[in-house]
């Protein structure tokens, strides 16, 4: 079934919408949740939350791209669950490693309290990523959006792990400079 038809089912409040979504995007959302949470059981619970969130948010939303919409829901839900469980602080998962790496992006005078509202920060990061060469942007997103291990990214794209790690390091530093130069924080 096409995405548009699935969205139409949601708008018709047909329960078939959830079944169709599970059939088409279940493995995709599960993979995202599993990479962030580490645990398969947690990931499955997380994905159930995603279906509920989709049911509750469509309508009013009518996503133009259902995969990205569900992927974001899955990631958001998984991160929220990760935060609640404190697993990120205990370390171990790929997401926890990713988060630790991202500390290099935090501008010096930044603080959570002073940080931009999430949406503006996301827009700023999107702008920065759009300005990157394709390769760097994609590698960055596979590491920090999908929380894929460096090893997997390197294997997939035919790079050495060192090269991917260096590329990520430079991109992180570039993002930090961008956030500082654009003064995108209230220090």
């Amino acid at each position, binding site marked *: 079934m096409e995405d548009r038809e699935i969205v139409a089912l949601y708008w018709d409040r047909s329960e078939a919408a959830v079944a169709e979504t599970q059939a088409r995007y279940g493995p995709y959302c599960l993979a995202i949740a599993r990479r962030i949470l580490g645990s398969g059981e947690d990931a499955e619970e997380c994905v159930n939350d995603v279906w509920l969130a989709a049911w509750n948010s469509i309508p009013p939303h009518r996503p133009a791209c259902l995969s990205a919409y569900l992927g974001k829901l899955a990631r958001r839900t998984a991160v929220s669950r990760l935060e609640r469980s404190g697993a990120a602080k205990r370390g171990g998962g790929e997401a926890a490693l990713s988060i630790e790496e991202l500390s290099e992006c935090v501008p010096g005078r930044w603080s959570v309290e002073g940080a931009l509202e999430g*949406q503006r920060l996301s827009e700023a*990061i999107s702008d920065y990523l759009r300005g990157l060469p394709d390769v760097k942007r994609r590698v960055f997103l596979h590491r920090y959006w999908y929380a894929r291990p460096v090893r997997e990214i390197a294997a997939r794209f035919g790079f050495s792990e060192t090269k991917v790690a260096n590329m990520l390091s430079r991109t992180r530093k570039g993002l930090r400079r961008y956030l500082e130069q654009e003064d995108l924080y209230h220090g």
Partner: protein
Amino acid sequence: MDDSKTIFQAIGEVDDGLLLDAEAAWERGALRRSAHWLRWVAVAACFLLVAAAAVYWPLNREVPPPVSADTSTADDGGEQPDSGTCAPADLPAPVDPVFNELTGGLYTAPGGIYALLAEDYVPMTRAEALDHFGAKLPMEEAAPELRQESGGEYGVYRSGERGCYYDVNCFRFSSETGEKSITVSLRTTLIMAPSPSEVRSNPETLEPTRINGWDLILFDLSGGNGVPRYYTEFFQGGAAWYVTGQGLTADEFVRVLSALLEEKTAADGPATVTGTVAAVDSRYGDYFDGQEHHYTESHDYIKLELDQGGGLTVWLPGEADRYAKGDRVTVTYTGEPATVGHIWPGQLGGVAKAGE
């Protein structure tokens, strides 16, 4: 940790288009090297090439150099090297290839996103991968300047439950300088997924080029950087072939296709296929061009699940609404599907519903 977590969360909300692009690149399994990197490699390779030619050329004069179809130097008897072209030994260049403009941009389709489980990955050698597709890539004949790139990774995703569910493999060839390249991607799975050339502003204007008896639709994807880039798709031997040539002349690209396509000897009768309507779309039209989302005018088409396997998209401007999901139909068309699994209006003989 909290600050970096804020950034991690913010990254999660980046623009959809960036995600689709990243996912599509993951599916293709290969990222283009940056132009910056290529420039340096090209410069270094040029020096090496000149040095190597100076040292070795006198020793290798007995080897017939390639003949360029562009420069018409056949009378030279192969005495002069033609390093600027991918020259074939004896493949005729088809007359007047037509390159269609792909005005809709490359389409990074959400339909191409699905879970690939690492534990299902079955690595293969290049030869095994080619066997999997029953494909041959006789590039040395068509474009001796191009060499298979080293370091390629080949394999398929297969599980007991899903069978072989993902088998896209890329075979890449490039010249020593990296300025010219051919990428052949093959797949037999999920051919129903939208192809890169699904979105066009005006599919009615597509013109085919006849190569080895095939009526192929060729696309010109050249950007503003002056580097020619050509693209086509076709079905052969049960696999979908996606062929991209970069830095090659039009003739060189066509010669490569001549080598890849088996000769067709069948008479030019219209083809007939039967299937079931899987989807009707009379208003589809958003795509991402690498920078931003665009919303196009309506594109009417129906998607079929063919009785013989695979799928087919049939463009039916203004008529798609006559059909409904589940309808049994027979489609008659001439030539090849315009792109993998697409019948464009100019080649459509007709669509008949069962019982009508």
